[in-house]
């Protein structure tokens, strides 16, 4: 089962910031694969959602970009800026609170397995 894009839309920025918190630097394709791997294919980040988000994070100064040439093409590696590190903590805390609220709102119990 994969989750609907609507469900993921509001969390993508947090996912990217968290990935960059845990990994020193990453490029777009690597992020999509890492998310697939960590969620056992349940979350598949689309290119159409990921790259606009990375572009916005870069413009906001939350991520830094290093460029590497692979033959004729360019690979953009993203890493967190100092502002981005603080933002990542803030977004993660917000999302954790949100999930806790949803669990209590929907009366869900954590699944133990």
């Amino acid at each position, binding site marked *: 089962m994969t989750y609907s894009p609507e469900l993921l839309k509001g969390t993508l920025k947090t996912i990217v910031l968290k990935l960059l918190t845990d990994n020193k630097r990453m490029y777009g394709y690597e992020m999509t694969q890492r998310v697939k791997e960590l969620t056992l294919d349940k979350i598949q980040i689309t290119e159409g959602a990921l790259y606009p988000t990375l*572009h916005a994070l870069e413009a906001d100064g939350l991520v830094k970009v290093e460029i590497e040439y692979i033959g004729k093409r360019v*690979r953009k590696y993203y890493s967190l800026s100092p502002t981005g590190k603080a933002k990542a903590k803030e977004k993660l805390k917000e999302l954790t609170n949100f999930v806790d609220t949803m669990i209590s709102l929907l009366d869900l119990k954590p699944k133990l397995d």
Partner: protein
Amino acid sequence: MYCISDQQIDFILADLHRKGIQIEGLQSNLLDHICILIEENLEEDGDFEQFYFTTIKTFYQQELREIEEEALFLLQFQHHLRFSRNQFFLLLFTIFIGPFIAGDLLWLINSVDSNGWNLPFEIWGATVVYSLFPLLILLVLFLTPERQDPLIPKKSTILLGIKPFIKIIPARA
């Protein structure tokens, strides 16, 4: 593993450009992503163009330029408040008519204290008319056919903020 040539990279770049991806950073990201997919999934003697056109179609719903539009949208309107059409009208009525109705009702209640419920018809009449006025406008707005509502089309999104103060984004077909 397939090895992409410089000519094929130029081909992909030209196609991205033709399909509406103008921002250089986005072009680089998409090019690299596509190249990796091709290198990892296409057989050495595979058909490059066919694989490319099949892959690129999975990147968008209707057109590739959606990706660039989304990037520009996130940049330009990230500090704007986003409302659905219903929320926007609710906000308008709350701001412009709400205080008037609240004031009118308070005045009515105060009048009841001094005169009892035996109030002149004008007071009841005005209250009823002004209270129902927003409802009437809402009925007109929501029952108007699509073609006669070009300003704020149904299912559109309204953004409020600074520069621009208001932006109306019609729903995608």
